[in-house]
């Protein structure tokens, strides 16, 4: 292969040529290139601002989620798994089971439709007789059965026929989650 040694003039010509080509590229494509770089950077800035906004928005939800999990554990309620058509029946069965397990003998159980304005699915009235501790235990368990129950009223009277026993009359409301739209507090 012919190895040509470049003279100083050849090298100078090459150098000038390379500088000229680079200058041409910078002149004609530099502005376009810079513009595209700036556009990309502006898009990235927008993304970062959007990310900051979303982060601000999501920050309170960290606590909300923790609170929600705690309440779900306390009440043992998974709202997503509540089946509206069979909710009342399931709740009634659970109450009867809890009463039976606690030693409370249940009497008549009456169900009626709930008040739509109060977002109630159904209202229930039940009577039972049992020892004081059993009745108290039932009252306590009603909150943790896994159903959205609110005890409207409690009436306790001594049971004359059974010493040591009391008679309890409960009025319960089963809340309807599907009618719930947003955050509401009891007045």
């Amino acid at each position, binding site marked *: 292969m*012919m*190895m040509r040694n470049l003279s100083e003039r050849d090298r100078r010509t090459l150098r000038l040529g390379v500088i000229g080509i680079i200058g041409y590229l910078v002149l004609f494509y530099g502005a376009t290139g810079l513009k595209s*770089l700036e556009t990309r950077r502006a898009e990235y800035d927008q993304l970062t601002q959007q990310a900051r906004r*979303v982060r601000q928005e999501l920050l309170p939800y960290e606590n909300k989620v923790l*609170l*929600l999990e705690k309440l779900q554990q306390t009440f043992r309620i998974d709202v997503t798994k509540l089946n509206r058509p069979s909710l009342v029946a399931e709740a009634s069965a659970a109450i009867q089971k809890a009463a039976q397990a606690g030693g409370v003998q249940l009497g008549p159980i009456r169900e009626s439709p709930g008040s739509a304005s109060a977002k109630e699915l159904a209202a229930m009235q039940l009577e039972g007789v049992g020892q004081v501790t059993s009745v108290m235990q039932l009252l306590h368990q009603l909150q943790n059965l896994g159903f959205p129950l609110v*005890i409207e009223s409690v009436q*306790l*009277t*001594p049971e004359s026929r059974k010493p040591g026993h009391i008679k309890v009359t409960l009025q319960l409301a089963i809340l309807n989650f599907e009618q719930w739209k947003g955050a509401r507090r009891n007045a």
Partner: protein
Amino acid sequence: MKRLPLSTRNVWIEFGGSSLRVHDGTAGIEVPIQRLENGKIANRDELIGAIRSFAGNGWGMRPRAICAISARGVSLRRITLPPTTKDNFDQLLAFQVEKEFPLGPDELAWGCYAPNQNGHNSSHSGSPQEVTVIAVKKETVAEYADLLKPCELNPLFTVGVIAAAELCRQLHRSHALLDIGEIHSELICVEDGVPSGIRTIAWGYRMLRQCVADALNISPEAADPLVREATVAPAEDQRAQKVRQTVELAFARLAASIRQTWKGQHLYVTGTGTPQIGAAHLLSRLLGVTSEPIHIPHGEGTSAAILGLKSLGERNGACPPLVLDLRNAASVARKRRPMAQWKWAAIAAALVIALLCLRYAEAFIRHDSLSQRLAQVNAERERLPRIDRELAFLQFLETNQPPYLNALVILANASAPGTRIQSLSMNRRGDLSIRATMQNSQQATDLRSKLIESGLFSTVVFDEQTPGPNRQVNVRLSARWRLTKSVNLLEKTNTPALKPAALQPPTRTR
């Protein structure tokens, strides 16, 4: 020492005073040079044709021509340079050359022995450096370069006698080499491997032959064989004796010229006819030094200079130790300056790239990952309203669970022993009503106080108090508890008035 690229073919050329020798390592040619009165070459075309036909390469590589020139007109100076950096070395040297030589560096073709080749101050930075500079008029070398241009050769020029000195470099570091030529002789003095003097002596074979011809009254052509045979002729030959005497006288003049320049102990003698006339032996006797001949193989195009260049080339392709540079000082300085300029340009380019990277690199690198992550988060955001709804529902459930058990505990703790409760009712709105029988009215009063002190009830009223038999009192009590967020009111029962007590079923008194 600079190295030639190994793949380049080399041709060695000697531009003598009267002849041109060309050798390529295997064969050579010798062409006489005809000069004009001003010393310029007259038969330029003939020489070009001879070189071209000898070194013509066809399709092969363009050979490099390493050229040795005569020492006529060559000056040697030892220059002391102050300590300086590598970048400034050439510029400083050019200044000193202009100072030391009669012509400026732009008018000279010059080269130098680098400080580490001098053997002085080689590795001491911060101390003056001694540099040996050898220079010749640029037009002399330029003429030879122009002659080689049509032959498509890349020439490198050095001084012939310096190349010849390479033949005895390994023998003694301090010596002198005498190259006896046809018209003049060249003497180079070497100290510690670096030339310390170059001199042209107007003494050559032609003059020797003329002396013998004058002594014997014959023509110089007839004297030539007599000079060669004088050393081997028998001692009785009177003619040969006369020739020997004449030769010795002529060599005495040569020795005197050598002594003016050189005072060393080792002398090497070379030249085409030196072995035959015993020049080394004669000079050894006349100068009182050790003198050895350097044998030149018989062949066309061979000489001490050619052999010296060839031995350098065979030594891993080494360049001659001194190369006469045809470029001017400004271009030499520019050769170094661009390196520094390119360094700064590279630093500037690196800084610009760093600036662009700082500003734009993050956008390029993180844009896609950030947009993907945002898309994922935006998809998850659809669950947020549901979370709000569920939380609100459960919080409503929590706040709307009336504290029935709390109220019963407080009531049980506040009631005095013997209290008989006939009925008790509570509702979600916070209303509590009790119908009970107490032992005395004081117990009723105490009950009310304790219920209020408990903090759970905002109002406690006795709707009815009816005295009964045995100082008993039948009471109907209504209370309303505070509708605040559930408080662990069981803690409040630790007050002495509200010690925990079991809720006893009413005992029959009848």
